[in-house]
């Protein structure tokens, strides 16, 4: 009689341990799934996530924005340059016409237009670089996310 009750008590002890560790696994997996869906839907995760995608989950909407090819870039840069030169020349010409200083102001404003054009080109190129860098870093982020 003594031995039997002892044995039963001993058998129950390990059973409780294994039972407790086995069950919550399913719920934890569900929590991960929920978090993932939330990120995909562009919603902020209610519970902080150790492997969150980025500062904000919505910013990658423009990810699929077209990336300009080099021809398009060249077109853009040249229009930026030419437009400023045209504007500079036009201002000089108009002022000359108005003030009767025929070639002087045109000669002053034409180089200024060229300078403005170069400024334009510089800015546009800068912006393009930033864009492509952002795109690259985005791609890198995506890669690391997939790996983890």
């Amino acid at each position: 009689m003594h031995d039997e009750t002892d044995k039963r008590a001993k058998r129950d002890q390990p059973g409780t341990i294994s039972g407790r560790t086995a069950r919550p696994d399913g719920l934890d997996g569900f929590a991960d799934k929920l978090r993932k869906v939330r990120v995909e839907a562009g919603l902020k995760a209610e519970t902080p996530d150790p492997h969150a995608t980025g500062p904000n989950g919505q910013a990658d909407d423009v990810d699929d924005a077209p990336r300009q090819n080099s021809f398009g870039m060249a077109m853009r840069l040249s229009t930026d340059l030419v437009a400023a030169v045209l504007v500079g020349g036009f201002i000089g010409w108009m002022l000359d016409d108005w003030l009767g200083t025929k070639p002087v102001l045109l000669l002053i404003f034409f180089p200024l237009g060229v300078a403005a054009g170069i400024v334009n080109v510089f800015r546009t190129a800068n912006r393009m670089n930033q864009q492509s860098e952002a795109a690259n870093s985005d791609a890198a982020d995506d890669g690391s996310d997939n790996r983890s």
Partner: protein
Amino acid sequence: MPQLEFGDFAPQLIWLAITFILLYIAMSRVALPRIGHVLEERRTKIADDLDSADRLKREAEEALTAYEAALAQARADAHAIAAQTRDKLAAESAKERSTLEEKLEAQLAEAEARIAVVRDEAMNNVRTVAADVTAELVTKLTGQAADQAAIDTAVADALSSRS
């Protein structure tokens, strides 16, 4: 180049203004609010669904915790009952054993007492018999009655040296 026909500028500009303004009104008043509303609705719906999923998950966890608590409680109760039973049984059997032992002890003592009495009796008998036999033997051998006192002393000596 047809693009530089200045006479064509006015009609293009006028119709551009008309169509663009109408399109802007249609977009800003009808289309965009409608699409925005739909997207917003879907977003809140998804958020709500996720929230309720979260809530259900939390409830499931609570239920699990409660279940585990109940299980642990039941297990503890079972242990207590088992231990209690075990103790009770042990106490009972110990009591039984001690009464049994007491009884046996008493019987043993009784038996020993009886044996002692019997032995004493037997010893007395032996002494009488030995004295009688000795007296008889002495009478037969010597042809005269023996001294009763001497015989008693001799028998007592022999018996005490033996036992």
